[in-house]
C-alpha cells in the first residue's frame, strides 16, 4: 500500500518533474483513470481520510506522575471570583491583602487560577512571597515542571546558575533576587561567576540587587567594584559600602572626615585635599566654575557616604547644627542619603521632624514604622486651616501600606473637620489619602470608615468618596469570602 510519505515525495518535486509511481490503495478503494496530478491528489485525499477514520491512540509506557495530596482546604468559589476580578484588573492593589488572608486562614488557592498567579509572580516580585505559601502541593508541582515559575520552589545552585545564564533580564533579576533573599552568600557567588563578562548596564542592576541581604561578607567584592570602569558602578559600590560601617571605605572616609567636619559651636567644613583615593571612594570633584556649588556637592557626597555613627552627637544636635550652618541644604541632602542607605529609623524621624517634609526628606517616610507615624501624627496639631501643608497630610499621602488605627481615626477626624469648615480647600492629596485609607485601614475599622465616608458623600463629596467606598465594599466582601469576619 502506498503511503502519504511516498506520495508527498513526488508532490514535493511535482508530477511534471517526477514520474508518479503506481499507487496502491487499501482494499476497497480504487482510483479511476485520471491525470497524474489528479491521481496523486485523489490518492492523498483518500489515504488521509482512510487514516483519519481508522486511527488508534498512541500509548505511553511510563505511568503518569501523580500530584501530591493537598493538606490545606481550597478557597471558596466566591473567593476565587474575587481573585479572578483582581487578576483581570479590578482593585489589583488588593491582591497582596487577599493572598495574605488566604495564608492567614490556612487555605490554598483554587487550582484553575494557579497558572495565572504563578505567571504574575514571574514578573511582579512583590507577590512572590505571598504567592508561595498559598499555591499548595499542586502549585509546587507546576513550578517544578515550569522553569519560569521555579521561584515557587526553594532555589538550588544548579537551577539558579542555569537561570542566571538566561538571556532574559527578568529571569536573571528574579533568580538573583530570590537567591539573595534565600542565601545572600550564594547570590554573591552567582554574581562573581559572570561579573567580568557583564555589560556596564547589567553590572549596575546586579549591584543594586546586593542591597537585599547586604553584609560585611559582600565587602571584599564591593571594594573591588570601586575600581570598575563604569562611573555609575563605582558610585553605586561606594554607596553600598557606606551602609557597612565596618567596611574599609567607611574607615578611610571617617579618618579624613575628622579633619573635614569640625563640630564645636556649629558645624564647619574644611575642604579635604582631593586625592585619587578620595575620588575612588565616591567623593566627587566636579569640574564646575562655581566653587560654592562644587563644595556643596562634595559635602552632600561626603556626608551621604559617612556612617551615621561617625557623628559624636545626638541626631537632633547634628541636624540642628547642620540646619544652622552655611551649607544647610547640602548637609540635609547628604544626611538624608546616608539615612536612606543605612536604613536608620531614628535618624529618619529626627530629619523629618527638624528639617521638615521637603522633597529631600520625603523619601525617608518608607523607613518609618506604623508606630513612628502614629507618634509623628500625635505631635502635630491636626485641625489646621493649612491642612495640605501639614506633616500629617504629607505623611498619610505617602503611606501606601497598612494603616494603623490611629492613622485611620486621624484621617476620619480630618474629613469630618472639612465638613464643618467649608473654607478649608481640598486638594488632590485628599483623594489620594482617602483611597489609601480605604485600601489599607485595619479590617476591624472598615464598617466605621464606610459609615463616615457615606456621611461625607451625602454632603456634596460624592466624587471624593465613590472610589474609596467601592474599594471598602470590595475588601469587606473579599475578606468575608475567605471566612474573615468584618463587622
Amino acid at each position, binding site marked *: 500500500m502506498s503511503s*502519504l*510519505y511516498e*506520495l*508527498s515525495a513526488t*508532490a*514535493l*518535486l*511535482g*508530477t*511534471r*518533474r*517526477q514520474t508518479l509511481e503506481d499507487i496502491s490503495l487499501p482494499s476497497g478503494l480504487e482510483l479511476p483513470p485520471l*491525470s*497524474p*496530478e*489528479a491521481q*496523486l*491528489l*485523489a490518492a*492523498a*485525499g*483518500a*489515504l*488521509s*481520510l482512510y487514516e*483519519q*477514520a*481508522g*486511527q*488508534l*491512540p*498512541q*500509548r*505511553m*509506557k*511510563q*505511568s*503518569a*506522575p501523580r*500530584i501530591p495530596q*493537598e493538606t490545606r482546604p*481550597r478557597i471558596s*468559589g466566591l473567593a*476565587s471570583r474575587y481573585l479572578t476580578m483582581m*487578576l*483581570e484588573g479590578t482593585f489589583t492593589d488588593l491582591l497582596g491583602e487577599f493572598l495574605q488572608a488566604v495564608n492567614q486562614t490556612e487555605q490554598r488557592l*483554587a*487550582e*484553575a*487560577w*494557579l*497558572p*495565572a498567579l504563578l*505567571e504574575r509572580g514571574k514578573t511582579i516580585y512583590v507577590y512572590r512571597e505571598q504567592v508561595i505559601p498559598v499555591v499548595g*502541593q*499542586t*502549585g509546587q508541582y*507546576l513550578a517544578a*515542571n*515550569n522553569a519560569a515559575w521555579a521561584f515557587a520552589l526553594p532555589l538550588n545552585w544548579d537551577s539558579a546558575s542555569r537561570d542566571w545564564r538566561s538571556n532574559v533580564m527578568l529571569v536573571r533579576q528574579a533568580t538573583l533576587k530570590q537567591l539573595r533573599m534565600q542565601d545572600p552568600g550564594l547570590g554573591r557567588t552567582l554574581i562573581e561567576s559572570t561579573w567580568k563578562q557583564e555589560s556596564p548596564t547589567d553590572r549596575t542592576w546586579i549591584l543594586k540587587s546586593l542591597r537585599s541581604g547586604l553584609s560585611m561578607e559582600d565587602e571584599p567584592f564591593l571594594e573591588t567594584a570601586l575600581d570598575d570602569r563604569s562611573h555609575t558602578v563605582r558610585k553605586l559600590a561606594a554607596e553600598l559600602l557606606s551602609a557597612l560601617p565596618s567596611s574599609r571605605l567607611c574607615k578611610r572616609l571617617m579618618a579624613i572626615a575628622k579633619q573635614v567636619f569640625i563640630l564645636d559651636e556649629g558645624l564647619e567644613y574644611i575642604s579635604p585635599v582631593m586625592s585619587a583615593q578620595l575620588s575612588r571612594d565616591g567623593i566627587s570633584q566636579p569640574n564646575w566654575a562655581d566653587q560654592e556649588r562644587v563644595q556643596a556637592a562634595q559635602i552632600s557626597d561626603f556626608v551621604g557616604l559617612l556612617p551615621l555613627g561617625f557623628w559624636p552627637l545626638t541626631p537632633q544636635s547634628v541636624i540642628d547644627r547642620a540646619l544652622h550652618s552655611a551649607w544647610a541644604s547640602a548637609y540635609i541632602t547628604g544626611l538624608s542619603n546616608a539615612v536612606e542607605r543605612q536604613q536608620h529609623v531614628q535618624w529618619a524621624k529626627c530629619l523629618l521632624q527638624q528639617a521638615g517634609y521637603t522633597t529631600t526628606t520625603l523619601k525617608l517616610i518608607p523607613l518609618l514604622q506604623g508606630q513612628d507615624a502614629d507618634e509623628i501624627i500625635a505631635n502635630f496639631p491636626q485641625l489646621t486651616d493649612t491642612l495640605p501643608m501639614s506633616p500629617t497630610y504629607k505623611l498619610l499621602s505617602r503611606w501606601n501600606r497598612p494603616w494603623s488605627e490611629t492613622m485611620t481615626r486621624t484621617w476620619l477626624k480630618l474629613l469630618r473637620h472639612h465638613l464643618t469648615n467649608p473654607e478649608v480647600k481640598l486638594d488632590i492629596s485628599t483623594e489620594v489619602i482617602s483611597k489609601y485609607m480605604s485600601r489599607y485601614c485595619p479590617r476591624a475599622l472598615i464598617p466605621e470608615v464606610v459609615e463616615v465616608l457615606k456621611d461625607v458623600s451625602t454632603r456634596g463629596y460624592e466624587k471624593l468618596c465613590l472610589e474609596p467606598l467601592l474599594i471598602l465594599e470590595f475588601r469587606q466582601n473579599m475578606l468575608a469570602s475567605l471566612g474573615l469576619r468584618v463587622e
Partner: protein
Amino acid sequence: MAFAHKWQNLGRYDGLIWGMIPIKDKPALQTRVCLEPLHFACNCSSYQHPCNHALGLALLYVDKPRVFLNNQIPSWAEDVRSTYSLLTLSESPDNRRWQRIQAGMQDLERWLLDMVGEGLEGLRGKPQTFQQMADRLVDAQLSEVAKDVRQLSSITIKHPTWHQDLLASLGRLYLLVEGFKRLDTLPVEHQSDLALALGWLPPIQEGETLHDRWHILGKRLETEVGRKVQRLWLWGEVSHRPAVVVEILHGKKLPGTHFLVGGILEGTLQFYPGTVSLRAELTELEQIAQPQHPVEAFTSIEAALLHYNKVKSLNPWLKSFPICLQDVVAEKHEGWLLRDRDNHLLPLPTRFAYGWHMQALSADSLWVFGDYDGKTFLPLSVWGHGRIIALHTLRGVT
C-alpha cells in the same frame, strides 16, 4: 431612509437588494434585504431588528425599484442569502449564482492540479498563494472552502512533516471538488454534508428536531472572512448528542445568544440534515439551573477515537467533532497531551494556552470537553471546583 439620495451602490439581483449609506469619517453602512424569504441585515449598531436602514431600503425598493441599478452582488451582501439551498440553486442551470459556485470549484480544481504538477517545494514561504485562492473562493460564495484554503498557509512552516500534511489537506480538498461534480448522484444526506462543507446551509426543515436538556459546554467568538462568528457547543443530557450552533454577527452587534458556558438549556433543537447531524439552530429553549455534575463522557481515549472514526467514515467532510472525556490527566511532553488510565494519549494543539490549568486540575481526574479535528483535540471546557469552567475565561499561559 426611503429616499434614493441617501443611498449609494443600490443594487438588486435574484431576490436580493442592497445599498450603502455613507457616513462622514466612517465606513459606509452596508444594508441588504433578501426578499424571498424575507430577511433583513445591516452592519449598523442598532439593537432594533429590522433597523431603520433595512426597512428604508425595502420601502425604497417598493417605491422606486428602477434606482437599484447594480446587478453584481458585493461579497458583504452574500451571507444573508446563505440560507438558500445549494440544491435548489443547482436545479436551475442558468442561475448565475450557481454558475459562480461552479466556476469557483473549477478554479479550485485547476489550482490544486497546478500545485502538485509544479511541486509543493515552491510553495514554502508563500502564504499569499493560499490567501489569493481563498479570496477568490470567498467571491465565489464558498466560505468554508475558503477557510480551509486559508488555513493551509499555517502548514508550510518548519514542521518536518509539512509536505505530508499539506498534501493530505490538498487531497481532501480535491475529493471535495470531485464530490461536488457528482452532487446530483449523491444521497440527500451526503448532499447536505457536502453543502455544509462548502459553506452553504442545507434546508433546515428537512433535518430532525430533538428535545433534551442541552448543556452549554463551549463558546467561541472568531473572525472568519471579515465577519464575527460565534460558535456554541451543546450536549444533550439524555440523547448524549452534541450540537453546534453558529451565529454570524454583523457590525458591533452583540450575539443574539448570550448563554454562558456551564448553563443548561431545556427545549428543542432543530438540526440541519446530514449523515451526522451536528449543526443546529436554537428554537424554543429555556435556560435552567447549573448542572450538579458533568455529562457522561468517554472514560477512555480509545473509545472516543473509535466513535470519532465511525462519525468520520459517515461524513468524511466533517472538520471536527465534539468529544467529552473523563478520567484523563494533562501532561506536557514536547507539547501538551491528555492521558487516560490505560496510558493512551491524545495530543492537544501546539501553543495551547490552557495546558497548565488543566494539569493543575488533573490532581482529581479530569473531565474535559473539546473539539477533535482528527489530529489534535482542542479543549473548550473542564469540570473543576464543582462546575463547568470555560477555558477561555481563564488567563492563558503559553
